[in-house]
């Protein structure tokens, strides 16, 4: 294992200290592992709180700030945070208008956030939980754990965060978060496995000519292993899966994210984005807004995820609203 760290067990604490040192706009409670805005929550503003295992940076801490999250709770690497973190965070950021928990759909995250929501309710806080489950590589079914939450989290946090900043109430913010999630689909492909600091070994072995298709963001293998193919074909596979589940019609607007999984050079992400743009242009779908870069990563995994959100005018306007976080900033 080759990592720029001091010790596997120190990664999270050291990184949080680094976040604290780098971003004066963030307040990092290193003891409780809670990241909030230095400015705090405006009285009467609905607070947005998210969290999950670490190793996906900039998610979620990098999205704390004006127009997006009020608090992030980082767990250990690939491990859900514990209920106490969310309770501490919720109490810290509640502005009297309630707190929306944005939870990626993984059993661990769901259970820990659920317990936190119960504890918060006992403390008199109003909490609404929104599940993100956009990964079409996993088919939804009542008999399974359901689809994973991946790239759409960024869209949910940005758009619902903007609505909260505008003063919408708890129900409205939660409702918009759900709408964005319902409109978004993702699909990912990995060229290499990632290595968690604790395990020290890659999660799986891939030959020089193979890729894992339909991977999540926790280093698990994908739905199937295939021969590595040109970017154009990989994009076709991903967009087929996405558009099969959420058709887009000519004239539709989309917000598109081409996201690196941690070890993918930006030049390759632009190659991928070019292919996505061509496919959508051929369908007369407009890429109204886009992100190309590393937003929801998986440690040192090489690969890409593509997220497409079928966006309405409200979503686009909220997308354009000011945001000022370490990883996403405009208009502020």
């Amino acid at each position, binding site marked *: 294992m080759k990592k720029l760290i001091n010790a596997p067990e120190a990664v999270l604490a050291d990184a949080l200290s680094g976040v604290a040192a780098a971003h004066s706009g963030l307040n990092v409670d290193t003891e409780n592992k809670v990241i909030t805005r230095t400015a705090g929550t405006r009285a009467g503003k609905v607070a947005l709180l998210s969290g999950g295992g670490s190793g996906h940076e900039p998610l979620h801490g990098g999205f704390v700030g004006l127009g997006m999250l009020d608090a992030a709770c980082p767990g250990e*690497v690939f491990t859900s945070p514990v209920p106490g973190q969310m309770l501490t965070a919720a109490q810290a950021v509640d502005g009297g208008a309630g707190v929306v928990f944005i939870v990626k759909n993984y059993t661990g995250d769901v259970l820990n956030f659920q317990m936190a929501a119960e504890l918060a309710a006992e403390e008199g806080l109003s909490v609404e939980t929104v599940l993100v489950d956009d990964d079409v590589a996993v088919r939804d079914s009542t008999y399974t754990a359901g689809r994973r939450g991946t790239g759409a989290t960024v869209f949910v946090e940005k758009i619902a965060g903007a609505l909260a900043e505008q003063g919408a109430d708890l129900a409205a913010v939660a409702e918009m978060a759900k709408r964005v999630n319902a409109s978004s689909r993702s699909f990912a492909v990995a060229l290499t496995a990632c290595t968690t600091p604790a395990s020290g070994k890659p999660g799986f072995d891939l030959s020089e000519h193979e890729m894992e298709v339909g991977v999540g963001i926790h280093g698990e293998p994908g739905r199937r292993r295939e021969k590595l193919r040109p970017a154009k074909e990989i994009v076709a596979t991903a967009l087929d899966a996405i558009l099969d589940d959420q058709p887009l019609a000519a004239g539709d607007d989309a917000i598109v994210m081409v996201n690196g999984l941690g070890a993918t050079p930006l030049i390759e992400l632009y190659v991928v984005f070019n292919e996505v743009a061509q496919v959508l242009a051929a369908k007369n779908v407009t890429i109204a807004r886009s992100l190309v870069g590393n937003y929801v990563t998986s440690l040192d995994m090489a690969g890409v995820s593509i997220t497409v959100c079928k966006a309405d005018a409200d979503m686009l306007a909220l997308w354009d609203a000011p945001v000022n976080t370490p990883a996403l900033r405009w208009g502020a």
Partner: protein
Amino acid sequence: MDIDLARAWVQAIATAVDQHKDQLTQLDSAIGDADHGVNMHRGFSAVTTALEGVEPDTVGALLVKAGTTLISSVGGASGPLYGGAFRAIGKMLDAPKATPGEFAHALAAGLDSIKKLGAASPGDKTMIDAYAPALASFQQQADAGADLAAAALAAADAAEDGMRATTPLQARKGRASYLGARSVGHQDPGAASTALIFRALAETAVAR
């Protein structure tokens, strides 16, 4: 079961988890996210610390404290599931001692908690597939009048059988479910840790 034994059991789990940390993580690496050993280790280290110097009046108080500590230190899926189970077990044992039959009831409450929280059924390739057969064997022995050691031994054997039986299953819950058919052929990490928990119970009871 009494307070000292309960404490010894929890400590034996901590020791077993410490010894099998890498193995649990490797199992989780194959079909999950390579953290189960680390999670369990972090949790039971915290439990050991939390119980130091604590002198509860009931078996239940000790186990509830263990469960609460797991919830507040593990994270992941196993934290709430195991934490909730220990809390449920503890809540049934509101006395300094418990007969094997009472303990069987408590263990059943633990399994119910896991099922309720995680919504998994036997055969979904989870910790339930070790826990359910372990509980059944324990119950059977207790019903037949066996002592704690004998019942726990039977439970540990059954847990290990159940754990091994997860290998051919296709996962329907937890992260392994994302792999679909590719989860077949790998042993479930949570079932493996459940087997450790029942083996620790058996060894502690036998040593008494």
